[in-house]
């Protein structure tokens, strides 16, 4: 019996030492990496990447459209995605140079019609703060239209509203009384 007791004692000591080693190791490594954002090291970036998307935004700038890739929250429904895109568009291009995106414009709402038309309701700043010529106005509308159409699936056309109302023109050259696709027929 004393032999069995001794064996049991050795086994218990071994188990205790093994467990202590694991616990000690855990705390040791916890302390070592304690100053870093622990939870984000592996899992969180992966999670963030899953929740974001890259989109192509077309900005009017100095007589042409320039494309920039922007990272936005993962796109969802047509209206949610559309709003993300329009918000990015209204921020203007990150590159230097003159942009014709009217400053101070806010998105008031988006509505998706059964006719496939996405209605984009913008604040009056979009009209009031635009002071460009005909080409600038064309590129402003074209940039907004292309940004939405190329990123949001299911949208056939885009129509602009200002403060919830139909407006004949933004800059006095092109019509926005109608959806943009037809108005943006490019000439020669």
């Amino acid at each position: 019996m004393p032999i069995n007791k001794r064996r049991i004692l050795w086994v218990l000591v071994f188990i205790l030492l093994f467990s202590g080693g694991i616990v000690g190791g855990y705390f040791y490594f916890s302390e070592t990496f304690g100053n870093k954002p622990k939870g984000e090291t592996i899992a969180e970036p992966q999670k963030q990447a899953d929740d974001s998307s890259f989109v192509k935004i077309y900005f009017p700038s100095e007589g042409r459209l320039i494309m920039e890739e922007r990272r936005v929250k993962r796109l969802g429904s047509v209206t949610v995605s559309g709003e993300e895109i329009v918000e990015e568009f209204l921020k203007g291009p990150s590159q230097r140079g003159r942009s014709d995106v009217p400053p101070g414009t806010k998105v008031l709402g988006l509505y998706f019609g059964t006719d496939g038309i996405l209605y984009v309701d913008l604040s009056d700043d979009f009209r009031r703060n635009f002071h460009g010529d005909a080409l600038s106005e064309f590129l402003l509308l074209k940039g907004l239209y292309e940004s939405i159409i190329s990123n949001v699936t299911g949208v056939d056309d885009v129509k602009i509203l200002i403060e919830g109302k139909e407006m004949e023109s933004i800059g006095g050259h092109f019509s926005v009384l109608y959806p943009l696709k037809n108005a943006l027929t490019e000439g020669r």
Partner: protein
Amino acid sequence: MAAKVFLIILGLSLLMTDVPVFDSVYALEGKTEVSMRFSVHEGVHRIVFEAQDESFIKNTVVTSTQNQIKVQFPSNLALAVQGNLDIEASLKGRTYVINPGHPFRTKLLQLTSPPRLSIDIVQVTKEESTQPGAKEGSSLHPIPNIRIVIDPGHGGYDLGVLSGEMREKEATLSLARAMESALSKKNRTAFLTRKADQFLSLTERAMFANQKSADIFISIHLTPSQSFAVYSSLAESAASDTMSEYSIISRQRHFIEKSRILAEGMSKAIKDEFKKDVIYRKMELPLLSSVGAAAVMIEIPTETVSDQAGKTKVLEVLFRGIALYANQ
């Protein structure tokens, strides 16, 4: 004997009489025969060019600067000059250059049966010749009596392009008013879509032009760019079948060729005057698409109209552009 003396005296008196004589005749093959005669009455010099070919006279363009009048003929000509002109003038190729030698204003008349072009040169004081608007009023481009609707872009809360102190809505109105005034002085029929700083929709502007049965519609705009731009409508592709419910009413379809000719005339006039390239674009502009007339939109660089001299040059360009179109 008495009869012989009488005949000699009669012959001498006839030789001394100021009977028009063909001083010089350049009758060469392939050239249009043009006769030029002149007269002076109460200080007004009248020069008349006459040809059998009506289109030749119609396509003759007269331009004037402060010191000089240039008569540009459409093709080579054989000029028969009757009598002596007491002001300096000469034919250089297709261009007849007149230097009156004093401040002047001019009046142009185009007449038929027989086809002829009459230029009256009136001596004025230096002050009169330098008065703002004097040059516009005396512009010599042969504009026939057609109905011209001038549209000053923007207005009211729609300011248009901003450049320093300059606001597009005001600059376009100023140009349009000067243009209308100059045309009225020449007894031409011109209308303004707006005469004051007021907002007008694109539809209202087009409706106005159509109500006035315009032959020519010119919408004046500015651009911050360095280049002039001339626009005409892309009316032939105004609407697709699928989007027909949204199609823009296009009265322009029947005038698209005329608009192209007007746009080309304007472009040529700008190139000649400013020695700059002109951007010509065809686009689906609702205003131009809705007008039943030869219709163009012209964008003028803001820097060009920053002073009176620039404005005067722009007006000359607009008149010359109209003349080139009308004489096609």
